[in-house]
């Protein structure tokens, strides 16, 4: 942590960055929240530990106007967060040179009940792949299993009718609060498809049909770009199985294109390009 604070102080004092986006202790509840440090004397607020579940890359989006107006940012990124930043760079949402990446080795984040988050158990990027600085000792996730994969497998084992009923039940709880959208770094559209009115592609009403349109469309729009940070499910107050949905989408992308989420911004997104080698057995 001292490493982090020292680096932050140096970056701010030298005016290499004007704001450090990191984590600080939340004033109530014992957790953490996003911090926006502009004064070198405030770097003591920065922390990093297993409570740091937020994907801060979301604050790099163009639509975060207040943050953008603060100047060139440095941002604390775990492996998954760094992949999200790579995604933003890949999609021309931020220039590589316009952000200073403070990568931190991460041994996983904990959920409210103290256990390791499901996404961390299958993590393949405890060391961020994209960074300007790399801090902390190398880390290893102390845990096993793939509960998220098992959940997906359990859903897939249901008959089509049962699976439909399951999803109708889950989707009926959604109120279209859009927490899933706003917390996702890759959901950066300044005019989201569900907010377009001419024509109204997706019903904005929170009936099950509208909710189905929204979640399926969002999943499709994120295909090939989702990094599996799990923030969508963490953010959902109604407990929709969004991490499972996106895991399935990632599995399909890997199956069809051989591509997994990547921290390399130069790598083209699987659905962002066309190759002669693409499987076209779909066309009969």
């Amino acid at each position, binding site marked *: 942590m001292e490493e982090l604070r020292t680096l932050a102080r140096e970056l701010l004092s030298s005016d290499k960055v004007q704001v450090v986006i990191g984590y600080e202790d939340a004033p109530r509840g014992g957790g953490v929240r996003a911090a926006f440090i502009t004064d070198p004397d405030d770097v003591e607020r920065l922390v990093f530990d297993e409570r740091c579940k*937020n994907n801060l890359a979301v604050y790099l989006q163009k*639509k975060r106007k207040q943050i953008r107006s603060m100047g060139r940012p440095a941002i604390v990124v775990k492996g998954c967060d760094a992949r999200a930043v790579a995604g933003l760079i890949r999609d021309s949402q931020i220039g590589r040179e316009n952000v200073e990446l403070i990568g931190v080795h991460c041994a996983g984040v904990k959920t409210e009940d103290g256990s390791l988050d499901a996404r961390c158990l299958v993590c393949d990027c405890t060391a961020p792949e994209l960074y300007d600085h790399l801090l902390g000792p190398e880390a290893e996730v102390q845990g096993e299993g793939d509960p998220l994969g098992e959940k997906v497998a359990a859903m897939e084992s249901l008959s089509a009718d049962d699976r439909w009923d399951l999803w109708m039940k889950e989707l009926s709880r959604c109120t279209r609060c859009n927490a899933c959208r706003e917390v996702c770094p890759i959901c950066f559209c300044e005019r989201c498809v569900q907010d377009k009115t001419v024509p109204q592609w997706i019903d904005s009403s929170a009936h099950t049909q509208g909710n189905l349109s929204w979640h399926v469309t969002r999943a499709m729009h994120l295909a090939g770009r989702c990094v599996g940070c799990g923030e969508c499910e963490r953010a959902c*107050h109604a407990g929709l199985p969004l991490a499972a949905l996106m895991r399935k989408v990632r599995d399909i992308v890997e199956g069809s294109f051989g591509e997994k989420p990547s921290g390399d911004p130069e790598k083209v997104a699987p659905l962002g390009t066309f190759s002669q080698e693409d499987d076209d057995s779909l066309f009969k």
Partner: protein
Amino acid sequence: MSDALSPMEMNTVERVIPKDELKKLLQAEMEKGTRVVAPVQLDEGRFYSAVSQVDAIDWDQTGKPPVRSLKEFFFPKTEPLLSYRYHQDGLEVDPPQEPVNTLIVGARPCDVRALLLLDKVFGWDYDDDLYKKRREASTIVTFLCESDDEDCFCEMLGSSRDDTTGSDLFLIPTEKGYIAEAVTDKGTRLMETHGDRFQEQDVSRPQVERKQSPGVEDMDALVGWLGESFDNEAWAQLGIRCLGCGACAHVCPTCHCFDIVDEPDDTATGTRRRNWDSCQVPLFTLHASGHNPRDLQFERYRQRILHKFSYFPERFESVLCTGCGRCSRACPADQNLLGVLEDLWSLAQQSK
């Protein structure tokens, strides 16, 4: 009994309904066609939900309240305002359907108090008949709250776990069953309808301890200070991490902002609906010209706080909040309302 309660020394004679009699009461109501709404424990959390079986009900009043509030049974997340049908001879427009008789059981006092605040908005000069009819068609049975949750702050706003305000019938758990207090005529009628399930019993009423830390000692003073605070620089930092989703508004028992949209089913028919909306979303105030009066997130966050703790009390003499803490629990960006109010209170005190 939970840690929030302790038995009083003295016994009193009360009307008491044992739990299995209460279950039979609910069963009887369901058989009459009444919609029964109660807390239900799902894997994903506790939710108020219409139940088709009494066994589905979660009776536990400890811990935080259900994820969402009761407002969705009076002001649904989406509801038709009218339906229309074009046909060769013209156009027909029909009003929405009448509501179903509803019995809400297991409500928390904070959620019930919130309905009185919504009554003020939905009855302000124009009577919102959709809301009003649902209120008239509902009876609310509130249970003594046993929450110890850190994010709750109803006491700071002048309420308590045994606040009966807004309830029709208030039930207090004892070892012999629930003490039943009829608060309104509806409550009295409910007891009379199921009279033989309520017995006179000698019971000791549990004592409810005031447990929440005050946070803001003088809410009236804070409200007064907020009335002059619009240009205060502190707002830029208080709302800086807000992501502008709307989760806080959706789970909140008193937030009532809505959008109105037309939704065609086909080329000839459709509905005009109202849907939950939130002042935190950038689109909320965006003009067709592209101009947005609240362009930055902190301006939208300021609107939320000031609406609840300044504009609403100015007009309706109460803050638009019951201290349930849901917004803090639901916020994906870890904004905590009690924390924000405490920060504002510090500022207010420093400025004296």
